């Protein structure tokens, strides 16, 4: 344990970037939790008198075409965007873990069926599949979450399956079996905890990707509907005004979206270093 701690300290001291990403991450979490409470204005209150104002001291991020405060909307959207991503990733993590562990542990038919299903999902360009799923399931926020979860499923299932395969025949599984542990117990108590560290890296990298996907879906008009504040929609609404020079409508939500994704990706890279310096690329 102490060596892990020492290694963590080493990584953080060596790598200011990872430390920065951690701080940024907590910043985002804080904003998502506080939400409305720290927004300077009501994100939905429109006021045509101040429509399309560039950033001022009163409205740091300017106002949109309906005179709503862009900063407030960006702040309030944090909870929704991160929430969608967290739920989607959590769902695919849980289901993918179960499928992957079973496939890797039992092998045979279980493995073949699971792998075939996963391969079929992978035969689609993933964003296109998500789009089709939302179109088929219906245009709602829940369905965005389901679709994002489904397109992430292959990643988790595959990674966990191969990690479990490697460890299945390793000594400690045999030992656990000999001391009278059942299959499920071995999977839950012995196999799964061992693959968890590797999964943390994927979780973090995947969060960024899930955020991008959800925002992309709402950008093309799926899922979240106006006037709800959401980064993708705000960029879509601002897109119209870019060519006439009103940049702040799209820039601020877009930049914050980018920052959030970047933060998770940096965090993933940092975790990768932490868990296994050799995996570093």
């Amino acid at each position: 344990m102490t060596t892990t701690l020492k290694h963590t300290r080493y990584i953080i001291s060596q790598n200011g970037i990872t430390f920065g990403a951690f701080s940024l991450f907590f910043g985002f979490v804080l904003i998502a939790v506080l939400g409305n409470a720290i927004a300077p204005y009501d994100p939905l209150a429109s006021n045509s008198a101040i429509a399309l104002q560039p950033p001022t001291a009163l409205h740091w991020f300017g106002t949109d075409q309906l005179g709503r405060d862009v900063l407030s909307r960006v702040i309030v959207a944090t909870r929704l965007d991160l929430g969608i991503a967290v739920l989607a990733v959590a769902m695919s993590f849980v289901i993918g873990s179960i499928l992957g562990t079973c496939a890797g542990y039992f092998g045979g038919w279980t493995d073949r069926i699971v792998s075939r299903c996963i391969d079929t999902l992978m035969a689609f360009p993933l964003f296109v599949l998500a789009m089709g799923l939302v179109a088929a399931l219906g245009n709602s926020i829940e369905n965005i979450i389901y679709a994002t979860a489904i397109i992430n499923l292959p990643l988790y299932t595959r990674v966990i399956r191969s990690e479990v395969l490697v460890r299945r025949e390793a000594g400690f599984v045999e030992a656990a079996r000999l001391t009278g542990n059942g299959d499920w117990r071995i999977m839950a108590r012995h196999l799964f905890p061992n693959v968890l560290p590797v999964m943390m890296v994927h979780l973090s990298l995947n969060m960024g990707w899930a955020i991008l996907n959800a925002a992309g879906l709402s950008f093309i008009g799926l899922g979240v509907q106006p006037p709800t504040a959401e980064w993708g929609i705000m960029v879509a609404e601002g897109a119209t005004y870019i060519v006439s020079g009103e940049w702040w409508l799209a820039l601020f939500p877009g930049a914050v979206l980018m920052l959030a994704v970047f933060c998770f990706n940096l965090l993933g890279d940092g975790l990768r270093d932490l868990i296994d310096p050799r995996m570093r690329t």
Partner: protein
Amino acid sequence: MARYSTGKIVGRRILGAIPSVIGVVIVTFLLTRSLPGDPAAFFAGPAATAEAIEEIRQNLGLDKSLPEQFLIYIGELFRGDLGVSLTTGQTVLYDLLTRLPASLELTLAALVFAIALALPLGILAATRPNSWIDHGVRLLATAGVSLPTFFTGLFLIYVLYYLWGIVPAPLGRLDILNSPPPQITGFYLIDSLLIGDLGLFWAAAAQLFLPAVTLGLFALAPLARVTRASMLGMLSSDFIRTARASGLPPRQVLFGYAFRNAMLPVVTTLGVVFSFLLGANILVEKVFAWPGIGSYAVEALVASDYAPIQGFILTMALLYVVLNLLIDLLYVVIDPRAGVES
């Protein structure tokens, strides 16, 4: 262990893609049937009468059992019948075929841009570990995958079009002053050259530039990252040491020996990159009003016109299967070991 003739290997790979195609068709079929509410009502469109819906229900065979419906669906696919678009009034197949070249041209241009930049960057970074260029490439690799394509596109439009005015308005494949070249390949860049109209070529290239760069930036990051990592691995491998110890010239060691081997993981990554590209394509087409199949699908989505969306998803999936097959074959060409069943 035996090596097979190239023809045999290619045949095997093509056969290997068939399960994917079947899977894709089944999933698309299931998506069709799980549309919320009544599929017939959706196919008929919002303004249809009850009789029209009933007629469509029978035409579609929606009163039959699921397996029967599936057979009917397969039959329709073989006849190329993907339904009719309500918004354009044309068959979906016609719409997709006329719009596909635009999407392909954009995607390929983006891919070329990404590869042309990513490979040299990756190699440079790998040959100078811990230099500023190495750190730059690593940062780029992380930043690049964090870019929301639609946002990068808008940002580039604002700077290059609105502020500097060095690119034409982001409104499709050609500005209004030019009329499209006659359809030969459907790629404006190639067609305009084929008819020898250089002015048209430049006009088309100018329109293509920004969307292709936007899309390419997204694909650049994973490619540069993998190139760097696999080049690093190769450069410290035993056979590179042998090559250097035999006095081979640095160029040959770097490109003939290390790079060719390092290409293998890069080619594998192309699969993921295409998945990214085809997805991001939709967003970029919307941002740049690019008349490809992505914006076609988005328009249909807005109008709740479902036949085009299904046609689009099927097309994209089949395209992706074909691309993966090509990647597989490219791999076989580079790596002699790939054709071996042991």
